[in-house]
């Protein structure tokens, strides 16, 4: 009976039990349907991304050659030590491996923390190898291969790296490559760059980044959970970057660099502050840059994939002068006497002088501030004044021509404006023409007025209080009078300052006329103005890249000279000025001793310059920059030169020697000279 009742009861409870089981199965069924039918697309993508890895393949960066195809910059394979984060799953095991790796490497730069930081900084791209050290030695490669088993996830990747065949030669012009920064990544045009990619930072490498870079490829690999590759699924080979053929002539560049170093060393004996400078050699009929140098040196290899040492950081970025700057295009220099041809041309154009007309130099100009001349030159005409660099003559000429004309001639020759050369960070320099004067003086007037308004304001407030607190009427009146007096005084001061600072004074014109005062130009501007003067007035845009050549040899781009304009200065004026500059290298001229050995058919036209920049670090009337401009042959010009040596003291005694060496090389004169020297040596040894 008991059994029977239990059985009836259980039949009922088992029905309930069945319902529970059915509910469980419905739950499982529904969840499976959700995952496998509704959300399957999502999970399919996840499964594929689980096993697929894109392994980027860096494109080989384009080569850079000189105009004759001599390779200046190429690539060499380097071994990079990298870590594969997915090589292990658990954090602790990873730390162990990193510790082991640090012990094997035994490199002070590579510490446990550094590696951890490298991993952290790549935290959103951990499937890509994390580069621990670039360019490791072959010994280290072997050592790591030997410990392969203990170092899962550690691998060595071969990558092309920039290789500079001539070291620091034309380092500023070529520029350097380095890891891209976050800021650069955000710029447009850099969408397909990744953190850790190399990018041109300065020079040609920067301007032609998108030509040189090529197209990165990738390999798509199927991998296991342990990130072991199983097979290659797809491959997109990388496309090498385009090669670049410069307008630079290796031989000329080498001579310029070598001569620059020798001259600097010599000048330093007398003027130890002479550390920096720049020089440019242009083809006057095209605007091609044939050679360009800047000091202090920049060795692009210093930035090549390794962290800079502190000493190097100071050298390139902090020191004064910092070496990073390409002084040929980034340095603004007071031109000194190299500006005089502009003054002369302005005066000739204005008809206020004739080349033969004389001015008497008694060692000092007769208008205030009575600027001293380089000597007592007596009666000088255009030619002799140029040859001797007479300050009195050119001040007088500037006075006659007036600042308006000087400014517009300077502008026509491209001074005070970026030349548009295909190099980054070009400075504009400063030509104090009328327009600039107006802007500058307006700005100054605003500043001066602001300052005085404020002073008046505080004064009034101060006296308001005093007058309000005055105990008697007489004291009040006294205070009011005091205030009026003091305000009048301030207004007088204001007027004096405005008169002085917001007006163009006559002496400003004299100063400008001899290349001092507000004048500031880049060396490339000086070179291009010299070239324009040399070729009869055609103002070309200077350029450094002749050809862009695809990896298959096809010419992608062949640069044609770009004529920016022809100066309105008359041919006669130009011819006379060329003649005057030729007198500079004739006997009695300031650059005679540099070129007297040159044959008759290769006369050099030049102008020396000794500038007082008035910048910090320069002692007045003691420290000078040496500048030099020149072109040759004087009667049928081919090349133009401009250069500067900071603290070089004189143009002919410093940078002029570089011009001499480069011209000798260009016209093939140095070979005879070396022969002569050798013969002489031979004779003396006999």
């Amino acid at each position: 009976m008991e059994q029977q009742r239990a059985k009836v009861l259980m039949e009922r409870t088992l029905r309930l039990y069945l319902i529970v089981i059915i509910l469980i199965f419905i739950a499982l069924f529904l969840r499976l349907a959700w995952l496998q039918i509704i959300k399957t697309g999502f999970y399919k993508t996840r499964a594929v991304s689980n096993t697929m890895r894109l392994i980027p393949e860096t494109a080989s960066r384009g080569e850079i050659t000189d105009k004759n195809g001599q390779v200046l910059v190429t690539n060499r394979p380097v071994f990079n030590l990298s870590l594969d984060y997915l090589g292990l799953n658990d954090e602790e095991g990873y730390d162990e491996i990193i510790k082991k790796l640090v012990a094997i490497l035994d490199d002070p730069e590579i510490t446990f923390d550094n590696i951890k930081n490298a991993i952290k900084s790549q935290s959103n791209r951990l499937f890509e190898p994390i580069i621990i050290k670039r360019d490791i030695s072959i010994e280290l490669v072997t050592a790591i291969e030997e410990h392969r088993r203990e170092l899962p996830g550690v691998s060595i990747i071969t990558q092309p790296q920039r290789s500079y065949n001539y070291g620091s030669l034309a380092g500023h012009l070529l520029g350097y490559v380095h890891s891209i920064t976050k800021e650069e990544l955000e710029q447009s045009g850099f969408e397909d760059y990744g953190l850790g990619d190399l990018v041109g930072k300065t020079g040609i490498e920067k301007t032609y980044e998108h030509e040189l870079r090529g197209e990165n490829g990738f390999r798509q690999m199927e991998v296991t959970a342990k990130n072991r590759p199983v097979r290659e699924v797809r491959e997109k080979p990388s496309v090498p970057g385009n090669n670049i053929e410069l307008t630079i002539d290796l031989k000329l560049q080498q001579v310029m660099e070598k001569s620059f170093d020798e001259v600097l060393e010599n000048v330093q004996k007398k003027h130890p502050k002479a550390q920096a400078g720049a020089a440019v050699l242009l083809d006057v009929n095209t605007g091609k840059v044939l050679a360009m140098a800047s000091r202090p040196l920049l060795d692009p290899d210093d930035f090549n994939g390794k962290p800079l040492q502190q000493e190097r950081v100071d050298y390139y970025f902090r020191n004064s002068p910092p070496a990073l700057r390409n002084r040929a295009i980034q340095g603004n220099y007071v031109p000194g006497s190299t500006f005089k041809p502009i003054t002369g041309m302005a005066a000739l154009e204005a008809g206020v002088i004739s080349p033969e007309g004389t001015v008497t130099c008694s060692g000092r100009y007769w208008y205030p501030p009575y600027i001293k001349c380089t000597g007592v030159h007596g009666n000088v005409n255009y030619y002799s004044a140029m040859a001797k660099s007479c300050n009195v003559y050119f001040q007088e000429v500037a006075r006659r021509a007036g600042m308006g004309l000087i400014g517009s001639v300077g502008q026509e020759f491209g001074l005070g404006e970026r030349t548009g050369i295909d190099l980054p960070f070009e400075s504009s320099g400063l030509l104090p023409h009328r327009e600039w004067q107006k802007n500058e003086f307006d700005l100054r007037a605003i500043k001066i007025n602001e300052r005085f308004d404020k002073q008046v304001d505080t004064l009034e407030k101060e006296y308001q209080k005093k007058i309000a607190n005055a105990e008697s009427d007489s004291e009040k009146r006294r205070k009011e009078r005091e205030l009026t007096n003091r305000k009048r005084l301030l207004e007088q001061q204001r007027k004096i300052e405005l008169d002085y600072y917001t007006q163009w004074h006559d002496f400003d014109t004299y100063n400008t006329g001899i290349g001092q005062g507000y004048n500031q130009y880049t060396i490339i501007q000086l070179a291009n103005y010299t070239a324009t003067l040399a070729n009869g007035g055609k103002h070309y845009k200077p350029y450094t890249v002749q050809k862009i050549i695809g990896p298959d040899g096809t010419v992608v781009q062949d640069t044609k000279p770009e004529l920016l304009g022809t100066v309105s200065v008359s041919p006669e004026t130009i011819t006379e000025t060329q003649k005057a500059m030729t007198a500079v290298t004739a006997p009695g001229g300031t650059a005679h001793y540099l070129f007297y050995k040159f044959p008759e058919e290769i006369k050099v036209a030049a102008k020396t310059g000794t500038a007082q920049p008035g910048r910090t670090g320069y002692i007045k009337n003691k420290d000078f920059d040496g500048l030099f401009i020149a072109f040759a042959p004087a009667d049928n010009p081919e090349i133009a030169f401009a250069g500067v040596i900071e603290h070089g003291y004189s143009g002919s005694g410093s940078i002029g020697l570089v011009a001499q060496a480069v011209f000798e090389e260009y016209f093939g004169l140095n070979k005879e000279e070396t022969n002569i020297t050798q013969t002489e040596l031979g004779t003396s040894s006999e």
Partner: protein
Amino acid sequence: MRFSKIFKSIDYILLITVMLILVVGFFVLQSATYNASIKYNMNYVLRQGMWVVVGLIAFFSVLLLDISKLAKYSNYFYILNIVLLLAVLILGEETKGAQAWIPIGPFKLQPAEIVKTLLILGLANFLSSRVGKLNRLRDLFPVFIYVAIPLLLILKQPDLGTGLVYVAIMLGMLLAAGASPALLFSLVAGGIALIVLVIYGHYTWDWWLPLKDYQLMRLIVFVDPMVDPRGWGWNVIQSQIAVGSGGIFGKGWQSGSQTKYDFLPEQWTDFIFSVLAEEFGFIGSVVLLSLFFVLLYRGIKIATKAKDTYGSLVAIGVVSMIAFHVLQNIGMTIGIMPITGIPLPFVSYGGSSLLANMIALGLLMNVYVYHDHVLF
């Protein structure tokens, strides 16, 4: 009873269903062990096959004697259960933080699997006299104590998975024995609420928690696997990717990328269902679910047909055990249950589990074979 008679009275639907599950299991096991890193490995399939043979012998052996006649020895089963669990604690070899294995010669026995069956036999007898008298909470206490003693020994190992199976068996058998469903439901709900509260308390007020860190992490990643996607959450995430990416038709036998390339953890034991779901898709999953449902449905039918309450309760115990294994194992692979390492019956690789399940199946069949008084 003679074999000829046994063969005549066997529930063939049940037997064929289990055979089909075993066949499916072989295919999946082959795939799970055909692996990118361990290479082609027939060993697993062969060994599993050997255990099937051993299991079948055990299955038929269990049919030789009417289980109802053993009801009076239930206390011995209960004591054997406790002795085995004590032996594990004393002699057990530690793997993955739990003392689960007893080495016997070349084999390693996993008593956790067999003790479930012993509990069923003991509890069936304990409950059979209480059927219909389990309406109040007070009535349930003796049952709780009866189960709690072996349960505590299991948790001591610690083997949370088997512990949960114990609880499930107890709840299933209590439900069948007529305990108030509302009461049981409140107990389960209350228990879950208590666990949530205790874990919350652990993190907020630093309460003591009788869980090891890894067990706690499993519960946490169940709620949010992205807390630690490469660590504790890995299994949860990768398993669901495997299942979901299988789609309706699956990627094909031995073609699952999650399986082949080692993304799936424990793929021939705990996560074998994910392999099936990835390679055979929704269709394959539903086929296996259906087979399990048929198995359980037949089990419940057998319970209703049993000649006495003891038999019914044994049958329901076995059904509860298998049902919970299926729910828990498949549930964890698809993210509706936290991860506890218990195998999928008849599918997961492992001798002890297969043998224990075949014995349990034998008990179920035993109830069926001997249900008809007339035959004997």
